[in-house]
């Protein structure tokens, strides 16, 4: 059963209080972010749970979860490399970076490594055009990417994963 931690339940209450009475549906995007933080992705069970929390129909959650690109509708790796491929990043060499990550991790775009550590995804403009090429990794951006930097990031993730196990 999907169930938020006490801390997250308190956060949901706090978010709902930001809107007028009866407009708790406005909390849907932030609450889906909270759900994804806790569960890693949004299963239909999780979405139904969120619908219950906000007292809205499950379909209202599904239609939102499928619209926005940041919600994962299937499990993803522990570390998701979201590499920008739009014009300004392309001009500064994002294609080479994507190619390099593919080789290095032995996966195609959209795939996850067998150990479940890494997922590679291409994304459209993330607003870091002046610091291209770039990727999003979790909450933060990694910018001015080079092959050496990609190596270091992969190492860093492996180290963190090992430390957390």
């Amino acid at each position: 059963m999907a169930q938020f931690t006490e801390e997250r339940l308190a956060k949901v209450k706090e978010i709902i209080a930001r809107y007028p009475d009866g407009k708790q549906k406005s909390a849907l995007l932030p609450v889906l972010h909270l759900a994804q933080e806790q569960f890693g992705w949004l299963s239909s069970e999780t979405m139904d749970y969120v619908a219950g929390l906000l007292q809205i129909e499950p379909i209202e959650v599904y239609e939102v979860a499928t619209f926005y690109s940041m919600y994962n509708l299937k499990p993803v790796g522990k570390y998701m490399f979201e590499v920008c491929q739009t014009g300004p990043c392309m001009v500064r060499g994002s294609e080479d970076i994507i190619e390099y990550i593919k080789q290095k991790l032995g996966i195609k775009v959209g795939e996850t490594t067998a150990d479940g550590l890494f997922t590679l995804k291409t994304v459209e403009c993330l607003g870091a055009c002046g610091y291209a090429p770039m990727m999003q990794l979790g909450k933060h951006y990694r910018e001015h990417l080079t092959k050496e930097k990609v190596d270091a990031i992969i190492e860093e993730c492996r180290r963190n994963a090992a430390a957390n196990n």
Partner: protein
Amino acid sequence: MGVKLLLDKAHVEGIRYYDVYRREGGYRSVEKALKMSPADIVEEVKKSGLRGRGGAGFPAGMKWSFIAKPEGVPRHLVCNADESEPGTFKDRYLMEFLPHLLIEGLIVASFALGSNATYIYIRGEYAWIPDILEQAINEAKANGWLGKNIQGSGFDCEIYVQRGAGAYICGEETALIESLEGKRGNPRIKPPFPAVKGVWDRPTVVNNVETLAAVVPVINMGGEAYSKIGVGKSTGTKLISACGNINKPGVYEIDMTISVEEFVYSDEYCGGIPNGKRLKACIPGGSSVPILPANLLFKTAKGEQRMMNYESLSDGGFATGSMMGSGGFIVLDEDQCVVKHTLTLARFYRHESCGQCSPCREGTGWMEKILKNIETGKGKMTDIDLLWDIQRKIEGNTICPLGDAAAWPVAAAIRHFRDEFEWHVNNPELCLTQNFGLAHYADAREVVA
């Protein structure tokens, strides 16, 4: 050095924090505004000539004056921080490094509009910035600039930060409102305009981050004085985020009296093109505005020097001009392929179309497919005309401006670089390994000289 009104304190150490920001003169505009009437504040913003900095350039004071004031219905200010137009990263800079400047502008604007609950809608990918903004909000609140009875004025205001979840379309104000209500970002049919029926059907003003930050200098110096900076209807200063093939990518504040040539080559700004390459083309105002070849970038078709302001950048209309847009300045050097660059933009708009209107939903997909064919040597000569035909049928035929935004880059690329498209069709093998290059596009500096 041009006038700086927004970034003048950006490099003061600790300016992100309240104490330093206040010591440097922060929140003076709130002190001043709370002694004025809301109507007088709107009047000052009107006088300043401040235009919306998100892309459309609509006069901000005018927009504020449209807000409906039905008895007993709360009104809301919403800050559009859904910065997503490729080439644009100026709002991110403001929020990361000068969060209090935005909060200060939001308080003034909230007071002028009568918004007791104001929302900052920020793109979901800027996931670390809400923490910075919330810290600034908490500091402001602890010092009596937010909350109940601000500075004894009787005015109450709370500011909340809401993250989107990855959708360019939510930068369109009615889609943003839908998203804030917890729905898909499908733009609404206007009218009714948000000023009458916005979030939760209440009168709402949606303004861009930079516009709201600019309210601070407008109030501090007065609308009249602000309007004297710049030229004509391009008043005040504008943030330009520069990227692509330049030596110094980054965010620059300009006072709209400098030339495009100076902006590209001066060490104070872009610092020229790396590796001694020559300039081929530039998209001066974010991905949706028309691309200009070098020879039209520095000089207008009339032969006048092109300046970095709203009027001059659009001089010549779409035939020979472009737009200021969001200030996302993308520079392409002689090694770049216009067909390929346009393909990435077409893919972007296909990905970001909300799917409501068929011309946009279907058209963006077709444009991407055809451009992909041309780019990979599988195109036919008739494809170029077909592309032209599709973009023409999208433009103006959709609920929101995303359709236009998707059509314009394709149209401009064909308009100015048709021979490069034809070269791809005529050289299906060669185009896989080589670029068309600069060809007959004169070096911009030679043209200027």
